[in-house]
């Protein structure tokens, strides 16, 4: 089937990129050491990983229901605002500007970045941070991803918005699907065309870059590489006619929030706080109950 072959092709290409990057940036020795004592590392990230999986599962299980409720009941249509803001800020939308410098080479580059580059950008930190001596950075990464995705989904539930290519085929080109139609299978199975605000592509990519800056002493090479890639991903979403400038700004903001959450909270911490909170409540209630009995 077309879908399977598309996934396989992308999977192989991303794997090749991962292997190369790992050899250059992490180094074989550090990787071998990490793989050898993988057990405690996995234990270290068990909790945040569970939370991430829960969010993914929740999304998978409620996808259809949430979509229906959103389009028919709760959703607020904001496409016209996004279009309006883009135009008000720049006179013409940045998407139109980017598409006006359209070239085949540029299109190929941005399609590559949007699909392959993005997948690589998201996957590489898992390998890199797994190979470190402590699992703190990996836990931060997973929690930041989770926050990103969770908040993003919440926005998609609240806001119904179409991207430029869907609003006006005369002004904007749906370049991704003209240049690489099969990618439709992929994006369609992951996402819905009313989910554009904010740009999760941008927020995830920026999250990776912000964390790369944070870990610059451990992987100095990763900072410029992830910076260029993340910037290109953000540009590609507009160049390909998928997102508005406002989506990209909101995506970057979401990345900042997610990184803040990832760095300042841990799942263990949150669980502890919750436990303390509920146990005090419980104790209060118990005292009151015992007081009543007297």
């Amino acid at each position, binding site marked *: 089937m077309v879908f399977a072959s598309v996934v396989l092709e992308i999977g192989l290409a991303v794997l090749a990129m991962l292997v190369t990057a790992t050899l250059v940036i992490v180094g074989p020795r550090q990787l071998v050491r990490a793989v050898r004592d993988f057990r405690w590392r996995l234990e270290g990230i068990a909790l945040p990983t569970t939370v991430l999986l829960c969010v993914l599962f929740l999304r998978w299980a409620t996808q259809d229901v949430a979509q229906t409720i959103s389009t028919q009941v709760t959703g607020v249509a904001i496409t016209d605002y996004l279009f309006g803001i883009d135009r008000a800020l720049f006179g013409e939308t940045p998407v139109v500007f980017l598409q006006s410098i359209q070239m085949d080479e540029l299109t190929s580059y941005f399609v590559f970045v949007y699909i392959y580059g993005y997948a690589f950008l998201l996957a590489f930190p898992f390998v890199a941070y797994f190979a470190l001596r402590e699992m703190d950075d990996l836990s931060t990464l997973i929690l930041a991803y989770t926050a990103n995705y969770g908040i993003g989904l919440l926005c998609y539930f609240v806001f119904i918005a179409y991207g430029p290519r*869907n609003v*006006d085929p005369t002004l904007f080109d749906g370049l991704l699907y003209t240049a690489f139609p099969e990618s439709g299978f992929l994006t369609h199975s992951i996402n819905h065309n009313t989910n554009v605000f904010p740009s999760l592509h941008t927020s995830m990519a920026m999250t990776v870059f912000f964390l790369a800056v944070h870990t610059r002493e451990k992987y100095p090479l990763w900072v410029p590489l992830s910076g260029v890639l993340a910037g290109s991903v953000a540009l590609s979403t507009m160049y390909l006619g998928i997102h508005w400038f406002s989506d990209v700004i909101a995506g970057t903001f979401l990345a900042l929030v997610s990184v803040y959450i990832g760095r300042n909270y841990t799942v263990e911490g949150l669980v502890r706080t919750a436990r303390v909170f509920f146990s005090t409540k419980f104790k209060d209630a118990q005292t009151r109950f015992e007081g009543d009995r007297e």
Partner: protein
Amino acid sequence: MEELAPPTRRQLLAGIATATTGSVAGCMERFWSGSDENTPEQVSLVIKTVPTDDDYIAASILSQLRENLADAGIQVTTEPVAEREFYREILIQRDYDIFVGRHPGLFEPDALRDLLHSAFRTEEGWQNPFNFSNMAIDELLEKQHTSEGETREETLEELFESLEQIGPHSVVAFPNHLGGARNEVRTSWTPNRAEGYIDLLSTEPADGSRTNPLRVGLFGEGLSDRFNPIAADVGSERPLLELLYDPLARRIDGEYVPWLADDISWDDSGVEIEATVRLREGLTWHDGESLDASDVEFTIRFFEDTSLGEIESGVPTSQYRGCQSVVDSVSTVGARTVEFSFETPSEAVASRPLTVPILPEHVWESRSEPVGEYQTEARTTDNEPPIGSGLFRFGEHEANELLEFELFDDHVLLDPAVSDRPSILNGFPQYDGIEFHIVGPYPGVLIDMMADDDIDIIGADLPPEHAGSIVEESDVSMVNSSTDSAYIVGYNFQHPQLGDPRFRSLVSRLIDRDHVVEEVFDGYAEKPETYAELAGVRSPDDSSRSADGTASVLRFPGSDGEINQDLVRTLFEDEGYRYDDDTLLE
């Protein structure tokens, strides 16, 4: 302490009255002085259509209209709405100012009556979705409905010309159906109606008849999860449903060909025409129950009131309502015979109800259950699986992926020896049913699938730029055929300015129809040329007066799709509208 006596009721009322008068007096003063100033605001319009993924053409027409309205000084809000939601908001809730959409087609001018008559204003679906009400138009619609011959022709011509001035809708263009087919299927068109599929399955492929189904590629968002032939929000799926549900007669090349009926005899001796319809022998539903005259009578009654009397004012069907409304009375006179009397003396008009899908009474009767104050289960159900009596029956179904229509082996018309077998069925079937492959909203994927021999034809409407790319592939061809349907702009009469015919007519002029046909359709469409066509009725060249040069709607105040701002401004000012800087005032 002296206690205060509670006020009596009279005292209380008097007190309230005094207080109210006093406060209102203050208000009134302010109100009057305010109304003297009367600061007008900018004219604003909400325009709705579907996103590019659902209809490239509609989104492009809206683009031109939006830019031109904005240049004319009007504040425009545009919001794309997914196809199903679009039908809900336009055809059910009527929540819009202007919409750009595709009307399935008015193959008989009498269909203008359901589209425009004020009596249909409160109904769902394509029954007057404009809140339009005009006594003169109502009279013309009724007169053409109850007359025939020359009187009807003249009435229609008068109606078309009046509509150009005061109608609530305007045709932008009649699209061609663009699709693609593998060469061995041997077709120069792809189906956009049920009859097209039947015709195609009667055509022998170049490599001989097949033991596999015909593989049809469709694209679209949310296609194929509702199978209710009478719901308002079912649009592009309708041709597929009409394959599952047979009518009494099918319209083929402009002729009504008896289908479930084997004999239709007309009696025009009275003022109004009557018909006796005899059903074929041995008809059955897909679930094995037998189909008889009472199902036909039930269907017509059910379309008139899907609550079957439960809801006092009646809840008519959202589709086929105009066709049904031509029937004056229907009665079963034998197991296979039904008698119809109609409101009209014209056989052409009276033939409309023969094309409605016949529904099984044993399935739909219980759906008359009210599910709201003015709603029945019949209009809301997904109707899965659909039980019809067509040549195809509902097979396997995976939402948004695959839909299988199997041949219905018990259908009487499968037997080549059956008497009066419609000639369209000569050679039927050359395939073992039909398989619809549905991909997301990506036409490019379908073209690749067709080139890889994963599908035989593309059934959905391809955007012209994609259709053009088919020539790059081998063994496949782009095909192109004309349709009944029309892209229209509709106006909501509840909007303060859109109620004004002069304003509406100016808005209609802001679409450059020549430019749309050339640039958006890439030439694969026809511009309305006559008054009949401006109203949505395709007419042979000589039957309606040419509107070219006389109809103001066809005179675009600009060039290449862009308006001449000064000219448009003058046009609005000539009609009594004012400008403040660059904004058009209410």
